[in-house]
């Protein structure tokens, strides 16, 4: 149920721009940093645009990038986790050590280097966030994967001469699924935070395209003019991560249940 609310939240922001139009210059004639009013339920931004529309438009970009990066990073992290356990010792160790090395670079630093190299287009940001987050997904899925590989039933499958495909699709995947569900939500939150931080630092999404982080950065001057405008996108980020947390607590309760 909670997971459905969370997914609904993401989908809502993904499709919202189709209803309000994507053009960024719907100038309403209002002054900059107006406070909340019936005409502008969330006030106006630094150019006098309606904040609600801006948040919805930016939300679509945010959600799209985060969802893509989350799915990609979870898939590649899970693949690496399975490979390090399933591969023979030497290539497995090399892979594991390589992941350790990647893991030991702070995520912002990886992003700095890669953004300097590839620029901050939407697609390169998806790739960069994936590179950063898949090592984290790998790290948290490695332990359960190792644990499942050590289960007697996997050992028995190996003794019985079952192939690699059976091992992965029948023995590992159904049993790792609950862990992957929890990790999916955690990765989403991490991606959201990370993307917003990059945009806030000015090296993420570049205007005129905006995401929530960019919106905060663009409206930051409003704070000194006594406007809460920069806080509004931040509050949406907070709501998204709280919803994700609720969904994750649901998923991890299911995990506890399946364990007992």
């Amino acid at each position: 149920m909670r997971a459905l609310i969370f997914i609904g939240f993401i989908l809502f922001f993904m499709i919202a721009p189709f209803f309000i139009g994507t053009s960024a210059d719907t100038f309403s004639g209002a002054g900059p940093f107006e406070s909340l009013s019936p005409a502008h339920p969330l006030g106006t931004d630094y150019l006098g645009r309606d904040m609600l529309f801006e948040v919805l438009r930016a939300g679509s970009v945010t959600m799209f990038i985060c969802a893509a990066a989350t799915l990609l990073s979870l898939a590649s992290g899970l693949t690496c986790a399975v490979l390090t356990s399933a591969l023979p010792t030497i290539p497995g160790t090399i892979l594991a050590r390589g992941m350790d090395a990647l893991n030991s670079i702070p995520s912002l630093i990886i992003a700095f280097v890669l953004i300097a190299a590839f620029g901050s287009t939407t697609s390169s940001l998806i790739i960069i966030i994936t590179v950063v987050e898949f090592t984290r997904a790998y790290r948290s899925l490695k332990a359960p994967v190792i644990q499942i590989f050590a289960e007697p039933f996997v050992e028995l499958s190996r003794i019985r001469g079952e192939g690699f495909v059976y091992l992965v699709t029948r023995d590992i995947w159904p049993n790792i699924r609950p862990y992957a569900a929890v990790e999916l939500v955690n990765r989403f939150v991490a991606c959201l935070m990370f993307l917003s931080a990059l945009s806030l630092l000015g090296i993420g999404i570049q205007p005129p395209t905006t995401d929530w982080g960019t919106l905060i950065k663009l409206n930051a001057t409003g704070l000194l003019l006594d406007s809460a405008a920069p806080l509004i996108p931040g509050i949406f980020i907070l709501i998204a991560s709280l919803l994700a947390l609720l969904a994750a607590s649901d998923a991890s309760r299911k995990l506890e249940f399946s364990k007992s």
Partner: protein
Amino acid sequence: MSVDSLTSEQHEQRSPFANLRSIAFELTIRLVILLVAAALIFFGTALIPGDFVTELLGQDYTPELGAQLRHSLGLDRPLPERFVTWLLHFLQGEFGQSFTSRIPVWEVVQPRLGNTLMLAGAALCWFPLALTAGVASFLAPPQSRRFLQLFMQIVLCAPEFLIAYIFIYVFAVQLHLLPAVSRLAPDQSVSQHIRVLILPSACLGVGMIAYVGRMLLSLLLMEEKKDYFEFARLRGFSRSWIALRYAVPAILPSIVNLLLIYCAYLLTGVLVIEVVFGISGIGELAVSSVVWRDIPVLQFCAVFITAIYVGIYSLSDLVAGQISKRGAL
């Protein structure tokens, strides 16, 4: 580590050399990992479009002059060879020259490093409060504990920049208590420094209070389930007495580990907070080096921060190793 646990370690350690050897082995692995990470950073920056030479020469660029400079800088040699040269220079403390300001990297970095360290140090001052929060939420009656847990959870969900803007909005804009922009200059007095640092360090500290407090609470709740806790309760001791006298010493290594993990987090948290508050530190430098593609500065910042990060994690793994050893006893 308390005096008590140190003595208990000494009793158990039969061959200190075996322990030392394993530590040395771990350190070697860390160094190799750091080397690989440096290589990743180097090859990553080598992917940056455009090259040193066009950046360096700027307006004066002609193909002949470019080729000459490229040769003199060794840029026409293969990438792995350049990596080795770069690494050797780096180890000797020659970090190159900034493209934008045309002065040695170290001179660009040095004044900012002090600011960053000051901010990080100020953020660590909140650690005792985080410990108090953890123990207090353990001792609190169930209802207030649930409330505290919820609060910590919400804070953990909020990105640090949102906390920063909320703090600025409340404390600087609305209440006019503290400055919204933190300028750190060498000519300021200590009290001015403190006043300027309160808000940015609090943004990092709130996150720490939530994280450390929550972890500490769950650690203490786990201790409460153990037999010794029940036995002590049944000898008439109160929960708070047992928590402070038995449980906290028992989880002390975990607390040290939490502190280290938090330090690692601070490394990147500081970068964001610096930009928000306009503190000229390493983070701000790194961001601008990305924007301006100032490769030597970027390389230095990346390798420097990674080295500290790996160092902190090595230390925390060492502590974790000690914990598991004690657990096995």
